[in-house]
């Protein structure tokens, strides 16, 4: 994939959201693309996700969202900042309305993938993001 290490991605559903299919499908796509996936499952609080991200040292956090609970994602961003993990790339996927998607991006989410996004678009985004991060830390 052209990066120096195997990319490690944390995939989780957040808060009380119980829709796990999207997260499971995406986890499989990323594993098939050669990435290491830490899948947390459902009922993960922002605190639990940040804790796991620190423990596992992941490059990317992917949140699957189908429950309109965007405050939980904002809380996750706040906690990452508090733990000096602002540079961890956060991506979201799911049924997120456009203007909410823009608001989340303004607050620090790197990319939002709407339903039916292609595997290629998700994999390419992650690979190029991790490459860029490596280049900037090397320079």
């Amino acid at each position, binding site marked *: 994939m052209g990066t120096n290490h195997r990319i490690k991605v944390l995939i989780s559903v957040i*808060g*009380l*959201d*119980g*829709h*796990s*299919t999207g997260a*499971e*499908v995406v986890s*499989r796509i990323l594993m098939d693309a050669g990435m290491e996936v830490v899948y947390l499952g*459902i*009922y993960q*609080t922002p605190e639990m996700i940040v804790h796991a991200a620190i423990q596992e040292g992941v490059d990317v956090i992917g949140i699957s969202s189908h*429950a*309109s*609970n965007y*405050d*939980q994602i904002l*809380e996750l961003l706040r906690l990452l900042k508090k733990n000096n993990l602002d540079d961890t790339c956060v991506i979201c996927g799911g*049924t997120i*309305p*456009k*203007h*909410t998607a823009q608001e989340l991006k303004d607050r620090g989410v790197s990319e939002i993938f*709407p*339903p*039916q996004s*292609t*595997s290629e678009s998700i994999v390419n985004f992650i690979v190029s993001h991790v490459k860029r991060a490596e280049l900037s830390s090397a320079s």
Partner: protein
Amino acid sequence: MKRETDYGHPIKPVYTPKDIENLEYERDLGDPGSYPYTRGYHPEGYRGRVWTRRMTAGLGSSRQTNEVLKRYRDMGQKGGMLVICDRTNAMPIDPDHPIGRREVGLLGWPGASLLEFEELMDEIPLTGQSITLLGSCAMSAVRLAYIVALAEKRGVDLSEVHGSVTEYPFCNNFGQTDAQPLDLNLKLWLDSSEYIIRNKIRMRSGILSQHFQESGGNNAQALAVEMAMLRELCSLLVHERGLDFDDVALLPYELVSIGSRFFEEIAKIRALRRMWAKMAREEFKAKKDKSCHLLIAVHTSGRTMTYQQPLNNIARSAIQTLAGAVAGCTAIDNACLDNAHAEPSPLAARMSLNTQHIVSDETGVTDVVDPLAGSYFVEYLTNKVEEEAYKIWSKIEELGGMIAAIEKGYIQEMLTESAQKKHREVERGERLIVGVNELVIPPEEDFQIPIQELKSGDSEGIAQRMEEWKKTRDLPLIEAKMAQLYSDAKKGESYNLMPSIVDAVKAYATAAEIIGVIRKARGLSYDPLETIECPFALK
């Protein structure tokens, strides 16, 4: 483009009498109203009664949802109301729970207490329409207690209330999750079901393939899973609770998910009627004809509603609604054009209800029962989906039935594989979806639709109200009811907790308090999320 059914069976360009040469009319179809009921239960079909045309409601506070329900009534929804519960309710945790307060009311009606049910039903009759509350299995007994308590308060004869407020214990595996273990869900479902049957309440219980299918399962699997669930749950009521099958058979209703594979969806429902009738008569030895009628409602598929070009979803919903109508069903609620964006906006809700009325009042579909019977293709598909479903169902039975198959991970694995396959098929262009992998337009040119959203802070408002209100209750009375419930919950699996749950609900104990106390009696933590402590001194 793949020319095969969604369960992978190849489709030929034309079907002839040879494809159904073994079909015997009386044995395999029968007239509408005759065994095996493939063609439906009523000789007159929709001429006697058109299906209940309804829309899901549930967003924000109970008062807000009540307003929506009243608006739906003005839009022509008179036959039945359908409310979906929110995520705090599903677990259940109360709206003022530290984790619940961030998202209470976002995805449905919070419904944490009888107070909220009273607010939900304000100025709305309990009788004369079906009352359906969709939510998790864990909350089944509590939702049923709301009905019992409110009927009593209003002086309404409970036997005149109909609808469904309880749901099957397997939804945790199919995306409709709560936070309770399977054994507890099973107990609460059996308790509520037994209570309904023994008290001759006209409430059904949802034993649904919809969640399975909306999570990515295919048509044959959905039929197999539905039959396996029905078989196991009915057996438990007959053998463990000592009920008569002819009474048990009046309990289940099935919500079928109908996607865009028009003929296959119709075949699935026709096959389901036949499969249930055969099981009822041959295995359960049903004595009454009525026991061979499985009540079937339709949910048009939210999964097929695309984020891209959302107005296209109106066309999809119309086709799916027509499929449900042609197949024959008791009620339809259709997914809205904005399903992939947010909860239904008033515009989307009106479009959905109008779609149903266009189908029922303009197309002529209500004139004739089972209009596709005798079609070589549809009869072939009905046989085929049934045959494939029987294969999967036998495999489930070989593993020991539905509960055993879930414990062994068989059902979950089957579902995951099917969901992956569906995703790959779309990605490879083997299945076309307009606006997604065909006729795509740039996102900036996409249709603009109104989005129904809660304002930030609405959840916190509901949480604060709950916090304040809880303190105003008759706390000694609640303590006493909780002590009773706790002691009853220690009396063994078959000791029915419904009477003590009804008492607790009448005293305004909340959902999380009731389920929490039952959890404690079973040696579990009071709070399923292990964040708060039990507020009662239980002995």
